């Protein structure tokens, strides 16, 4: 058609196809179930040796055994105690240190070089040292978990405080709100989302360090159990232990999501 010639009316072609996020809830379930089924089938058909990778049904049977003979309860209790005390100690001290650095330039000048120097050390590498210092008991394992939790918590806390818009603090000052009340009513709630999102990271770090610490010289705990079952070639019990750890991680994540929803309704 030559330029400038009259054209008949026609609809404008739709050109914005694709690049749009859609939800496919069924796909996730189907793929997950298919993988489990394929795994079960492969073991039953003898394609995979039961010794190296037991079928999902055998893992579930082992798990039932663990629950029934009380092994799970004892080991889980020991693990949860270490996880909770270690995580709580690291979180409390980390938030306190983070507030000190976030609010005081002196604490910042003193603290940040130390934190930057120690943060990159893989904390599990320090466990042998802690065992020398604190003995082979609970304290050294709890300390490793606490130390691993401390750094991300502290860094996230002062980062969250640094990111508070200066304007809302000036606003509170302009209305003569006393400093402690500014801390409680402005700084703390403004930093809370940042601190809560650190909980997600520290929960994962704590679980990882817990299992690793339990594999070094512990008599009880899920980590110690998994290691022992490996040495006995009891792979079904080993995987049952791994399954427990995964479910624990999942439950912690769900709990944290619930907590965020409860505390941050305003978002």
């Amino acid at each position, binding site marked *: 058609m030559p330029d400038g010639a009259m054209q008949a009316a026609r609809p404008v072609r739709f050109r914005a196809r694709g690049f749009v996020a859609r939800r496919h809830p069924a796909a996730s379930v189907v793929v997950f179930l298919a993988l489990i089924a394929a795994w079960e089938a492969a073991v039953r058909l003898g394609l995979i040796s039961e010794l190296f990778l037991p079928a999902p049904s055998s893992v579930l049977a082992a798990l039932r055994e663990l629950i029934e003979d009380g092994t799970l309860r004892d080991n889980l209790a020991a693990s949860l105690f270490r996880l909770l005390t270690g995580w709580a100690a690291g979180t409390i001290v980390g938030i306190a240190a983070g507030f000190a650095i976030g609010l005081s330039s002196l604490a910042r000048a003193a603290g940040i070089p130390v934190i930057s120097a120690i943060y990159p050390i893989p904390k599990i590498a320090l466990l042998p040292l802690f065992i020398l210092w604190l003995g082979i008991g609970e304290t050294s394992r709890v300390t490793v978990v606490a130390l691993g939790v401390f750094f991300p918590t502290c860094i996230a806390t002062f980062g969250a405080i640094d990111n508070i*818009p200066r*304007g*809302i603090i*000036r*606003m*509170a*000052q*302009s*209305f*003569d*709100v*006393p400093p402690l*009340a500014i801390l409680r*009513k*402005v700084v703390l*709630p*403004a930093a809370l989302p940042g601190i809560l999102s650190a909980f997600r990271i520290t929960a994962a770090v704590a679980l990882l360090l817990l299992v690793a610490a339990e594999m070094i010289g512990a008599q009880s705990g899920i980590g110690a159990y998994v290691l022992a079952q490996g040495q006995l070639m009891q792979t079904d019990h080993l995987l049952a232990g791994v399954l427990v750890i995964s479910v624990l991680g999942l439950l912690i994540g769900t709990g944290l999501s619930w907590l965020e929803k409860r505390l*941050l309704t*305003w*978002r």
Partner: protein
Amino acid sequence: MELVGRGIGQVFGDVTALAEIDVHVADGEVLGVIGPSGCGKSTLLAILGGLLKPSRGTVEVSGRKPPDCLAEIAYVFQDFNLLPWRTAEGNVRLPLEHHSMPEAERRERVAEALALIGLTEFAAAFPRQLSGGMRQRVGIARALAVRPAVLLLDEPLSALDAQTRELLMEDFQRIWLRDRTTAIYVTHNLTEALQLADRIAVFTRRPGRVREIVAVDVNRADRATPAGRARLAELHDHLWGAIRQEALVADRELEHA
């Protein structure tokens, strides 16, 4: 109350933001402050409100406080500075919480401030649920709740769209006709200054000085009448003449701050 600043100068590093400013706001007067961007208008307001220590000069307030006044000076900010985790009501409550008073009085003050600016039905809304205009209304109600002697407004309408701005100017007009609160209104918008101020201080570009002071010689209540509008239009031309050259040069200056 009246507010007097004498010989105020502000230096940031090697940049002189304010040269040598004298301001005087009489009791019940609204002083408009206009000037090109970066002329130090907001810096001056922060100094006058005690949020910034000036390099030189003094600021004094004097006179009788209005009844039930909790704070001599209250601010309204350009970007509202609301606490997003508090409802409109909770935000207005904040400046009252550290003053001891019966809870009933606190509630009454909050309700009255919200009602004055038409926010009663939005009392339970969080800032994210409110439009920009409504958010600034919360900021205004928060300042009014302390019944201040001097109101400092730092470009309060600059973050809003043109229509919302008109509506909020009507609100300000109503509040000033009612309470006669002493106020300083910083803006870069000539129309806002002419609608709302009794006198307008025109600032030069950085380092900021007062270039001239223009009296808006039209009664507040008459500013919407044809005669009032005509006079405001003349003043607008005069102000623009004074400020155009300053703005032009300021706009071409390289940012060295």
